[in-house]
């Protein structure tokens, strides 16, 4: 099964390797350096903004107590529910030369002042950072909540000031979590297609799509894909190494969690204001715009008559993909966590190639394979399903693996020694324990698939427009009020999932004492689990904790 997943990548590699050198030379002189620079600088820019936003918000939320602090805890997760292309559309509108923002700015800065164009590096950084900072925020928040204040107290006792303690102790200690968050954000940026193409910022993922839709052969697209996959592969490999090395950071036994400090009314107002600003920028404003456009569209009777059909298409594609991902992922995840054999490891690693297969590349890869091996699949739902599967299986796999990791092999062995056959042991012990984790893996794939764009654009059968495709078609014509209803629907469907997922990474308040003692090793695994979905919400299986609460 892993072969099915690795095959597409293999074909891309072969296609790129057999491409005429002249094509390579042309790409090298005209496209690759620019794309490399753009992709890297965009990733770096977003990472910096994410880091600043994510860490400071997490610090405020975990370390200060003020009216409203509880709400921000989860409100700040909501930006993950907005697809990047929707946020990009909203900002092209907000930062429009004749938009409200521009008018307001001119009042402040004089008639000749202009707001910066969203169609720029800064615009792309802004949109993608607002879209991805919750990754860093979420992981930093849970790291701060689990933080052993003894570290800070020790540092204070040796005479370090508050600020020094923050930079020399608090930040370094949660470094693995920050890295995991940045890793997610960076992969998201590198594989994003919707926002960069709407903002006309040239990255590899965007360029692959352009080459696929602008040329009559896929040679150039394959070449660019290979470079992208190579870079991403190095990145993923490096991140895994780093994570393995930094395990020791949080392996303390018992600890005292930090106690939030209460604030005065002025400070509370200030903090609330700051948080509100970020929230409005990342979620509130775009959300309000979507609602307004939707109301306009409904009032004008312009909602597409196919709306229900598109919704059904989205739901069935996402449902099928999620089911297929969980079903295919189960043996793979099992093999990866239980059978440390050469083949098992290869299977799992093979499936992770999906990490580095952004939507257009996955679509290209599947397209190439299908035309060589199974031309009958062309123009069917199956080829689209296959592309979504290749693209999203790692998300499922990561979630299921972390769920399986929490079931120690001892449990299965105990079942065996008590007379259960392997099948029975799986059914009576493993399955009940991982069910929650598998369900959350399913949900995550489902939501990711709802937002999936490039593969659907390239591979959908005739008459099979999804909500995402409709948003894209309308938004690229700048018919925002037509794009808004499907966008709003996706956001509404996604919100509960985002909250569910962030709840799975619950803070100490929701743990009992037993779980606290486990926090140390849970955390070490957490970094693994948290580095889940390549392009979206990662998965921390809630299973392990669930059974520790009183029945």
């Amino acid at each position, binding site marked *: *099964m892993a072969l099915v997943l690795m095959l597409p990548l293999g074909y891309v590699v072969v296609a790129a390797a057999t491409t005429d050198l002249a094509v390579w030379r*042309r790409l090298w*002189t*005209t*496209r690759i350096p*620019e794309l490399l620079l753009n992709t890297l600088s965009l990733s770096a820019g977003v990472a910096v903004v994410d880091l600043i936003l994510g860490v400071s918000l997490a610090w405020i939320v975990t370390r200060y107590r003020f009216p409203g602090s509880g709400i921000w805890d989860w409100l700040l997760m909501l930006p993950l529910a907005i697809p990047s292309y929707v946020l990009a559309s909203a900002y092209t509108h907000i930062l429009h*030369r*004749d938009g409200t923002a521009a008018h307001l700015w001119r009042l402040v800065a004089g008639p000749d002042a202009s707001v910066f164009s969203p*169609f*720029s590096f800064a615009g792309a950084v802004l949109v993608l950072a607002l879209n991805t900072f919750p990754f860093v925020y979420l992981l930093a928040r849970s790291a701060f909540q689990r933080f052993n204040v003894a570290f800070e107290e020790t540092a204070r006792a040796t005479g370090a000031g508050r600020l020094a303690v923050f930079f020399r102790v608090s930040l370094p200690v949660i470094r693995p979590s920050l890295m995991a968050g940045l890793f997610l954000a960076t992969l998201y940026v590198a594989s994003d297609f919707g926002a960069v*193409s709407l903002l*006309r910022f*040239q990255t590899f993922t965007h360029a692959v799509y*352009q080459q*696929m*839709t*602008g*040329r*009559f052969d*896929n040679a150039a697209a394959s070449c660019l894909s290979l470079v992208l996959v190579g870079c991403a592969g190095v990145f993923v490999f490096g991140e895994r190494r780093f994570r393995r090395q930094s395990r020791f950071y949080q392996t303390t036994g018992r600890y005292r969690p930090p106690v939030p400090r209460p604030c005065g009314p002025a400070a509370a107002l200030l903090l609330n204001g700051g948080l509100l600003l970020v929230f409005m920028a990342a979620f509130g404003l775009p959300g309000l715009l979507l609602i307004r456009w939707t109301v306009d569209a409904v009032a004008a009777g312009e909602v597409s008559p196919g709306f229900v059909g598109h919704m*059904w*298409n989205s739901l*069935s594609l996402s449902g*099928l993909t999620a*089911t*297929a991902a969980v*079903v*295919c992922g*189960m*043996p793979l995840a*099992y093999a990866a966590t239980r059978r440390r054999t050469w083949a098992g490891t290869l299977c799992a690693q093979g499936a992770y190639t999906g990490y580095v297969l952004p939507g257009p590349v996955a679509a290209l890869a599947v*397209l190439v394979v*299908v*035309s060589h091996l199974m*031309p*009958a699949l*062309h*123009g*069917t*739902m*199956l080829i689209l*399903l296959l592309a979504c599967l290749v693209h999203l299986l790692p998300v499922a796999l990561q979630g299921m693996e972390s769920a399986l990791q929490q079931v120690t092999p001892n449990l299965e062995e105990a079942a065996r020694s008590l007379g259960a056959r*392997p*099948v029975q042991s*799986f059914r009576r012990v493993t399955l009940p324990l991982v069910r929650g984790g598998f369900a959350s893996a399913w949900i995550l794939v489902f939501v990711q698939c709802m937002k999936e764009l490039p593969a659907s*654009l*390239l591979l*959908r*059968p*005739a*008459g*099979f427009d999804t909500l995402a495709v409709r948003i894209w*078609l309308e938004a*690229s*014509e*700048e018919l925002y009020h037509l794009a808004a209803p499907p966008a709003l629907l996706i956001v509404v469907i996604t919100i509960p999932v985002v909250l569910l997922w962030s709840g799975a990474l619950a803070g100490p308040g929701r743990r009992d004492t037993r779980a606290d003692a486990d926090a140390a090793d849970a955390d070490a695994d957490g970094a693994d689990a948290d580095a889940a979905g390549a392009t979206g919400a990662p998965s921390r299986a809630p299973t392990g904790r669930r059974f520790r609460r009183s029945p």
Partner: protein
Amino acid sequence: MPVAVCAPALLAALLAGAPAGHAGDDLVVYSGRAERFVQPALDAFQAESGIAAQVLTADSTALINRLHAEGARTAADVLITNDAGSLERARELGLLRAHAFPGLETAIPARFRAPDNSWIGLSGRLWVIVYNTALADPGALLSILDLGEPAWNGRIAIPAAGSVYLQTGVSVIRAVMGDAATTRFLRGVKRNAGSFVFEKNRQIVAAVARGDVAAGLVNHYYIHRHLAQHPDAPIALRMTDQGERGMGLILNAAGVGITAHVKREHLAAAQALVKFLTAPEGQLLFAHANKEYPLNPLVPAAPGLPPLDHVRIADVRLDRLADLRDPTMTVIETVGLR
């Protein structure tokens, strides 16, 4: 491991229950043309003939790649694109089917059709310069090549390299002026446009209207469309390269073809659709919806459009566009347009 056994079975079961992508009876149209300029004509066709059509909208090139990949199994019966070059390319790849029907000869002039009628032009579109009346002097724009001059540095907007309009335009310029002049032109344009490179023509027109730039390269109807919405917009259309020695305007055609692998039971319906689109009623809906020039000489141009009769058109046959395309792409990429 039983899961390994169950998984494929379960997957197969799920897929068997998956909703089909399209209803089996409907005509399937692959369209590289914006949906709202195709749908009205198809609706009228359905009202007249009772034949419904499913549309798959995507980029023209992507559709042709897809048709090619799908081969005999394609669901598509009819291909519509906004670019004659793409249609000709599809013909060369054997993706289209030659056909004829009585009255075709008179409906669409031969120069807007493939020699074997495997594709038929429906509406004409001119690649022209839009300029901001406050910022640009039309007198300085005698030829489209003028946009490559240093005087326009930072003042023009151009389409992205993936745009078939740009590719067609450059193909025509190459055919008439040669590679060296074209390369020079493109280098100038690339420098002059800077970051004002747009995926969509409407964005170019909007940028010119806002005054972000003084001029831009677009298809003519985008100007009319913008003016219809914003009558006061300070933009105008400039028809370049006229006069005795001028290259002439670059004209491209949107057209239609029946796919080589059209389902047998759909062939009659597909032919009926093509016939409908070339007839006056279809022409009006198809071309006028978008302020394009109907190619059926019996149908007048939409009000407000300068009649084509008096305009000099570059003398490059539409069916040459396909062959010109690949070397054009190489030129475009060598120059480094994105």
